[in-house]
Every structure is written in C-alpha cells, then in structure tokens.
C-alpha cells in the first residue's frame, strides 16, 4: 500500500512512473476497476478515487467507495429471491437492476426432489459465477470444484444492514481492511455475520438486541470511517450498553 495517496479524476493520465514495476518483465500489468488502456501506451482513469498499486501482483486500480454495485465474477453477495421460474430463482442484488439467476440445483446436495424451497424475499448468500456486461449474471451457492457449500446458502433469521461498498470490501479483505470491531464484539457476544459485496451485512445474534447492537456498531464504523482506536471505543460502548 502506498502511504501518500494519489487522488485522480476521470480523464487523468497515469504517469508511467506511478504504475507498479514488477521484477518479472514478462508479467503483464493488470488494470483493475477505474482504469482503462488507450492503445498504444496511455492509461487513463474513468472514476474519481485514490490510485492504488500492488507491485507483487503488478496491478493498479482505483479505490473508491460510492455508487451502485456492479456484479463481477467470484464476488460474494447477499441476494434477495424475487421469484422462481422453471429451473432457477430470480434474485436481485441491488434495487431497480435486472435480476440475476440462481439455478435450483446450485445448492449443496440439491437434487430435483430435495432442493431448498425459497419463498419470495428470502435471502441467499451466494457467489457470482459469471458476470459480463452482455449477459445476465449468474450466482451459485456451491463451490463448483468441490460441490460443497463453503458457508454459502440460504440465510435464515437475522437482519440485513445496508453498508457502503467500501466497508464490505474492508470486511472481506481481512487484516488489510483494518476492521476489528467484529472481533472485539465477539469476545462477549455470539453472533453470525455474512458480508455481501453488494453493500449488505447480514447479522444474526440469536436475539434482536444483539443483532441490532452488532449491525449498528458496524454501520457506525462505516459512516465514521473509524480506525483501530475508534473501533475499540465503539466496542467498549456497545458492550457496556448491553
């Protein structure tokens, strides 16, 4: 991670010396979200944010935290079932966008006879299998290589809290994301969470009080963009209030 941030606006040209240099000259440069390549040599930005680079992966991307979620392959998402057609459920990831398909057999040990019966508005924790701008995205609840659920599947009980997409990415990126509020709360509380890249956090604490406390604590960390110390303070306050 670079310490000094380069803030870019759409249309800015990235100087060649701002791009990562890999030790292996054969490794191609990977451009992530927000960057586009105009042949032959120019690399420009398309969204506003902070330029981030990773010299190990030889990758560059723009870090941003606003806008609508657009599905991309292998993202973890929380989908809402809207209806069931002959062989698949139609689900939504964000409001007012075309539905994504979740095949009836894309659950662990599902067969034609024994598949989960999901009502409308049921929540599913799933992974995006394919997403391109020209096809309808497809999601699944099994790991295609092992056939196991790997923690994916219908979400029962609990409650969903809207969080920013940046927060979802922080929560899913582990230590790098710098979120310790959940670890802090789990010392005294028992709860389950699922983080969807589409800006959703599902929390089940067994009872309403715990669920709300956890969800609100994460939302506060999100809106205040709190660091380590700020998060510890939130944890202390929440645990004292319970």
């Amino acid at each position: 991670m670079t310490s000094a941030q380069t803030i870019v606006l759409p249309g800015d040209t990235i100087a060649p010396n701002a791009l990562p240099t890999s030790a292996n000259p054969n490794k191609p440069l990977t451009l992530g979200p927000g960057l586009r390549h105009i042949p032959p040599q120019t690399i420009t930005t398309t969204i506003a944010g902070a330029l981030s680079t990773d010299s190990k992966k030889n990758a560059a991307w723009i870090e941003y935290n606003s806008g609508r979620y657009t599905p991309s392959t292998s993202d973890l998402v929380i989908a809402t079932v809207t209806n069931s057609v002959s062989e698949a459920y139609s689900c939504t990831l964000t409001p007012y966008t075309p539905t994504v398909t979740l095949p009836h057999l894309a659950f662990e040990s599902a067969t034609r006879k024994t598949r989960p019966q999901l009502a409308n508005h049921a929540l599913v924790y799933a992974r995006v299998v394919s997403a391109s701008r020209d096809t309808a995205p497809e999601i699944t609840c099994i790991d295609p290589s092992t056939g196991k659920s790997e923690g994916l599947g219908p979400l029962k009980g609990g409650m969903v809290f809207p969080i920013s997409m940046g927060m979802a990415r922080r929560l899913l990126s582990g230590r790098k994301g710098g979120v310790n509020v959940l670890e802090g709360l789990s010392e005294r509380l028992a709860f389950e969470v699922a983080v969807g890249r589409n800006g959703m956090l599902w929390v089940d604490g067994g009872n309403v009080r715990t669920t709300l406390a956890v969800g609100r604590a994460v939302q506060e960390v999100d809106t205040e963009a709190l660091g380590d110390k700020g998060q510890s303070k939130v944890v202390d306050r929440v645990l004292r209030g319970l």
Partner: protein
Amino acid sequence: MAPQALLSPLHQADGSATYSANGYSVIGAVNGPVEVSRRDELPEEAAIEVNVRPAAGVGGPRERHLESLIQSTLRHIILTRAHPRTLIQVTLQVTSLPEEESSVGDGSGFSFSSLPVLPPLLTTATLALLSASIPLSTTLSATLVAITAAGKIKCAPTAAELVRASAKVSSLHVFAFSVGRALLLAESEGDFEFGAWESACEVAEDACCKSVEGMEVDGEVENGQEFLRGVVEGKVGREMRWRTAA
C-alpha cells in the same frame, strides 16, 4: 462569492451533489446503471435520462430544452459502452435562484434567458456523476460569458450584473470544456460577431481549464477544473481516513 459544493448529500441515491454559485443552487442525483424500459433501451450503450426541475412550479419547454442540452453533453463524457442496455438517470432540481431572476416575469416585460442556469446545472451533473462513480472519459466544467454592447467580455457575470446592464448585454454564451481543453458545449444567444465569439471562447477556456504549466500565477481565481479536484479530494480523503486514523 466562491462556488460551494457538497458530494453525496442524499443517501438513497447512487450519487448526488449540491452546488451553488452566483446565487444559483442546484441539487442533483444520479441513479445508475439501472434497468431501462424496453422503449429506451439501446443495444450497445447506456441510455441517459436527464430531468430538470425548476425552482418553482412544474417544468416547461425551457426545462425540456435544458434537458436536451445537458443530455447531449453528458452523452459525450459518460462511457456509455461500459454499461450497455442500462439507464443512467440524472435528476437536477434548482433549489434557489438569484433574487433578480426570481423577481422577473412579474409583468415587467423582461424575460430572463435560460442560459445563466445552464453552467450550474452542468457542474452539478458532473459532481453527481463523480459521486455515483459512473465511468467518465473526462470531467467537465462550464461557465457563462456575457459580451456587452461596448464589446467588453465578462466571465461568469452575476445575475445582478446582467439585469443592471440588460439593455447593454448584447450576447450571452455558455461554454463547457473537458480536462483536455476540448470544447464540449457552446450555446449562444443574442447578437455577436465571430471574432467576439472566439475571444469569449478563449476567456471561458481560461476560466474552466487548468492554466498551462509554468504560467501559474498566485492568487488567481480558482478555475473550474481545480474546483472539481478540490471537492473530490475532500470526499476521497474522508472515505479513506480509516487508513490513517488511529
């Protein structure tokens, strides 16, 4: 009065911005990419819908005209091919007008031009698009230029200046420029000659775009591009402060 802007004041919209300058205040919201109605669907690019709401009353032909101008300008800066068969909806609500403009139309016979409101609308739309992280090929900054009958060029005149000199202003021009100094929009009104238009265009370009390197003068009025950058830097800094926060 320096222009002021705020990004993402509305939390339900995908992106939003408020902007006020020269007595005009506009709030804008962007939603997208969302599902498009079959009728408006374009097979290989995103459809762009612009709604302009006036400060008072319902929109009329004047707002439809502004909408078509803004739509055709934004179409060139949004990378519409990145989200085919979707809709990007831009809603702009004028929240306040300068005193001079809101008091005309009371029978004094003087009708206020629709051009002075165009630069704030365009700037708000750009800020809201930035806030919604819609892929753009460039950012846009716009300004109003007035040419008096005496041939004097006034950049970004206030409404009071326009009304006071209403008999003397011979033409009004709106120019919008990209980062790369490309002219994106030129709308003119009134009597003028090509030479005057050209010099007005040059004045607008200086007001919108970053001055050529090495020619920067301290204490100069902040230009349009620098203003946008400042606003975005504030926003990104706020979002990323967890990285540096203790």
